[in-house]
């Protein structure tokens, strides 16, 4: 069953990635602006025809995100005075900060329970809007980097506003619309009604909260956001009703990240380069999904062995395999939606979800962020490999000199430092240790997971850790903010310096970057770099736990 589930996903993605990747290529390279887009540009006061240098592009992006952050914070703090609040009080300052950062950075870490904290207006005008635009920002950055590779002797890398608007209007919105209809057909809720009051069998009352779930659900997956309408996220039957909605949600999570390499290949004029990147992503993803399934189905821990399967924390309607595959997909991308509780996974299964995020979420990663992360890794691989063929390393004809390697190095330094320093501070601090639900290695795993998730903008929680405290809200908020925007700045800088170069023509002395040899190297470099960085932490967390028995 597990194999069939995975195989059908692979098949569906294989069928879709080409036409969809080509569509995205046309979206980002076309000259025409549709009338609604022109209207948006006029309202924003930008001239869509002008191109930006990397620094202007970055300034626009940061300004947009800063405004988003303020608006989202304001909406939460003032929700009781606005419409559709469902009578909920204003969100507390540290949660509002954490949540605002979380949704603007495409993380969707949720330190709160959605249904009992946010009213419909915040959900729709605040969170759902960010689900679209934060995803579009990620894609814009990826496209800007690809332009850096594709252009020659150019000072500019595109126009941020155009990329943002087109990504939202021409890619995310149409799919979200169709996808929402499909999910409603699958039984998901979509209304603006007040909570239903029910009397339960035991005589108590329970309020069942409905809302615009399906529309938010679809962009939650499609934009690799992950922030659920309900606290239970995709484990909640209103968010993810059946086995096939589960399949469809995984498909939505993976479709953009796995199609972007095609767009990349088309833009640099060498489709095979796109396939190489796709192959790296697919290899890591398949190995990871398989291992997670193996660890979970094998159930290598005391309790699962006693009850026959690692079912704790998993929904019966999904079962072990479909939960494991969802878990791997959500952590391999920057989604962070969950349909089961990773905290309850077997130690090694839980470690896989962490390791997936520690990879920097590049296989296939978040929308856009997966592609640019993978391209940075390819740049680092090219640098070492290129030296070994006796030339100044070059990727797609662009030389990887000291400026490029400096930006790439800073990119890959950011998240490990945030994860490790954050976890270390938490473990060495009363406020941090207070949140632990479990002692022993599992307690360390919970904190490590939280900081890994936040710094990599994943947003999934191991659960178990009580993070709704001012300390964690602030610390994780900082990790999300820095983990999102520092890498973006470095990537845009890289794009700028690549775009300026004259490409070196390809020859027999050029390192070929489209062959299995190179694919294998990128996979190797990615895994070894991550393993070396995180092995001490993992050894004291999940590995110690897994080998303890």
């Amino acid at each position, binding site marked *: 069953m597990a194999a069939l589930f995975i195989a059908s996903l692979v098949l569906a993605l294989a069928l879709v990635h080409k036409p969809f990747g080509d569509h995205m290529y046309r979206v980002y390279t076309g000259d025409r602006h549709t009338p609604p887009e022109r209207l948006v540009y006029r309202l924003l006061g930008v001239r869509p025809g002008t191109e930006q240098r990397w620094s202007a592009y970055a300034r626009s992006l940061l300004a947009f995100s800063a405004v988003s952050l303020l608006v989202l914070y304001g909406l939460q703090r003032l929700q009781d005075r606005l419409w559709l609040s469902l009578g909920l009080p204003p969100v507390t300052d540290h949660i509002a900060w954490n949540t605002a950062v979380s949704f603007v950075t495409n993380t969707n870490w949720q330190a709160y329970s959605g249904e009992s904290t946010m009213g419909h207006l915040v959900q729709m005008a605040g969170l759902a809007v960010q689900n679209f635009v934060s995803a579009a920002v990620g894609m814009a950055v990826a496209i800007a980097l690809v332009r850096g590779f594709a252009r020659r002797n150019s000072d500019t890398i595109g126009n941020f506003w155009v990329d943002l608007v087109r990504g939202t209007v021409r890619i995310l919105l149409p799919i979200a619309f169709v996808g929402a209809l499909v999910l409603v057909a699958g039984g998901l809720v979509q209304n603006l009604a007040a909570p239903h009051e029910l009397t339960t069998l035991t005589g108590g009352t329970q309020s069942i909260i409905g809302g615009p779930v399906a529309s938010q659900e679809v962009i939650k997956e499609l934009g690799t956001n992950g922030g659920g309408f309900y606290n239970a996220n995709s484990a909640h039957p209103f968010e993810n009703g059946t086995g096939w909605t589960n399949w469809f949600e995984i498909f939505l999570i993976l479709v953009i990240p796995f199609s972007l390499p095609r767009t990349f290949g088309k833009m640099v004029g060498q489709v095979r380069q796109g396939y190489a990147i796709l192959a790296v992503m697919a290899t890591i993803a398949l190995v990871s999904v398989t291992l997670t399934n193996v660890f979970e189905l094998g159930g290598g821990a005391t309790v699962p062995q006693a009850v026959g399967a690692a079912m704790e924390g998993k929904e019966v309607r999904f079962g072990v395999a479909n939960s494991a595959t969802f878990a791997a997909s959500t952590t391999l991308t920057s989604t962070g939606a969950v349909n089961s509780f990773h905290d309850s996974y077997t130690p090694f299964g839980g470690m896989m979800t962490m390791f997936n995020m520690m990879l920097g979420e590049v296989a296939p990663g978040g929308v856009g962020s997966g592609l640019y992360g993978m391209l940075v890794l390819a740049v680092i691989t090219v640098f070492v490999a290129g030296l*070994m063929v006796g030339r100044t390393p070059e990727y797609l004809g662009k030389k990887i000199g000291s400026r490029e390697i400096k930006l790439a190095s800073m990119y890959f330094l950011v998240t490990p430092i945030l994860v490790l320093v954050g976890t270390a501070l938490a473990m060495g601090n009363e406020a941090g240790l207070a949140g632990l639900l479990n002692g022993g290695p599992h307690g360390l795993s919970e904190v490590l997971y939280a900081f890994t998730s936040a710094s990599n903008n994943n947003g999934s929680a191991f659960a178990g850790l009580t993070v709704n405290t001012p300390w964690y809200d602030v610390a994780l908020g900082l990790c999300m903010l820095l983990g999102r925007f520092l890498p973006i700045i470095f990537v845009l800088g890289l794009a700028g310096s690549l775009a300026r170069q004259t490409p070196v023509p390809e020859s027999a002395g050029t390192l070929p970057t489209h062959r299995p040899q190179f694919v294998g190297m990128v996979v190797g470099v990615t895994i070894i770099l991550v393993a*070396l960085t995180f092995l001490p*932490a993992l*050894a*004291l967390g999940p590995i110690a736990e897994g080998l303890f028995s």
Partner: protein
Amino acid sequence: MTTQVPAPGRGAAPERSGRVGGGLLDPRQLLVSLPGALVKLNPATLWRNPVMLIVEIGAALTTVLAVLDPSFFAWAIAVWLWLTVIFANLAEAVAEGRGKAQAATLRAAKRDTTARRLRSRDSAEWDVVGAPELKQGDFVVVEAGEIIPGDGDVVEGIASVDESAITGESAPVIRESGGDRSAVTGGTKVLSDKIIVRITQKPGESFIDRMIALVEGADRQKTPNEIALNILLAALTIIFLVATVTMQPFAIYSKNVNPGVPDSLALTGDGVTGVVLVSLLVCLIPTTIGALLSAIGIAGMDRLVQRNVLAMSGRAVEAAGDVGTLLLDKTGTITLGNRQAAEFVPVTGVTEEALAEAAQLSSLADETPEGRSIVVYAKDAYGLRERGPGELVNAKWVPFTAQTRMSGVDLDGREIRKGAATAVMKWVRDNGGHPTDEVGHIVDGISGSGGTPLVVADRDHVLGVVHLKDVVKQGMRERFDEMRRMGIRTVMITGDNPLTARAIADEAGVDDFLAEATPEDKLALIKKEQEGGRLVAMTGDGTNDAPALAQADVGVAMNTGTSAAKEAGNMVDLDSNPTKLIEIVEIGKQLLITRGALTTFSIANDIAKYFAIIPAMFAAVYPGLDALNVMRLASPQSAILSAVVFNAIVIVALIPLALRGVRYRPSSASKLLSRNLYVYGLGGIVAPFIGIKIIDLLIQFLPGMS
């Protein structure tokens, strides 16, 4: 060794006087360089190498900890950490030591001489001044037996000069005013005659001064790729620093949640002990490549010096590895300097032997290379013995003149002449002969194939035609095929007409040619290639080559060339062998490959070190982690010490490789990568598992190891 394929004009030049040989590392060199290595422990100089500076700080810290809380283990770690830094310094000192030896021989040539400075260009009067006082534009007179006081151009006279002090070549060379052989170098000795030299160097910036600075590495600047690699290494160091430091709270937490576990040498309630933490850090940061990086760069320059090439900057050496287009002069590089007889084509009714004999007779007194080649060819192909002009007593030799444009001999009533087709045909007609059209066809055929026809006639009838052609040096086609596999385009530059050029280009197997090339054409070609993103290398010697040499990314000037050319290029070949460009490219590539290979090796090593150190640190708290001790090392102490010792020893073990460079065989990029990945990637993963296990087997019996 840079390659396995033997070819002309390469391979180890015979050991020259005063030059330090390449090849294997002499253990004595390590000993000799030891004081230098100790001096380099000074943090003020070590900061240029951040990776090793961190090791030194770690070593100092460990020493303090060992003093405060002495144990055999702590002291052993401290000692080996210091050794790690010393070994790294040793690598650099050894590499520099080789250069110093060369600099010493050069210094010997730079004796303080006096100069006879002319009061003016045309003046016959001169003053005696010290050589350092000479300025640009001064004129000096130098006579037989005197040392030339500074670099300059001969403006009057001709002399034979002994340049062995610089080139190591003992045969004297001719230097004369005008033309492309006018440059002289300070410190060389005039053996005959008298010349007037215009000084072109600035005081203290002579060729020898620059050579000394270069081989000593005094003004060695980091090359672009080296800077980039340093950044990557710094980033890796930061990551491992963070990984190690942040581990401390995790360790304290882990220890505290397992209160029953007794303190160990590695882990106490205060976390991992300082000595062990430093050990882990040093093992993880890329010390191997960090230690050897500068030695690799110095040795790369050194390998060029071994081949008598002086690179004015490391940047140029690196650029050589990136070269995409090689411009090669036809004459002297691709072909032997002169045209040679390749075929005798007789007219109908004349045998080849008869023609060969006539051609040989007509050339016996002809001392031009073409004439000699006819005699040699007649002997080789037709077994005709060479006869000295004196053997044929009745012969009347007719020398070549610019008017007749033919030469020959009158012998026993025969009047044999050979020469340019038009001249000989006219001569035949003047003698009453009527050359047939056949001769014209043969001549046109040879011209059309790029050869030069020489018509041979006996008074009134044409015997046939000698086909002279440019002879491509042996092995050139193979070299160019090699270049193509490396992705390098070869372009032949020649003053010949396009027809001739094409024929030779086809024969030699170059990718393209530039015929009837003027200096402007050359410059335009270089610019065109560079606009396409290719780096261009070329050789040149004449003053009119200077702009092109300056424009090229790698411009190799011949030492015999003019000072303008030497000034414009970024390398000088003391042997003046244009073929060497190919070797320079290979050395450039080898330099980069060595860096990449050792970086890969260094990072790959970390995997085994984790497997040694992590269980050693934490198996006491989590016994399950002992499963990671795949090497089954004897005890935590011996495991950690083994990793540290291996980390230090591998530096020394790789010094010879760093100095020699990894083996380079011209082939395509993917083949090269596969091989290097296999050796240095896979090897880098496996080697430390074996090495650490062996060291553990040896040291487990030491005190304090259990």
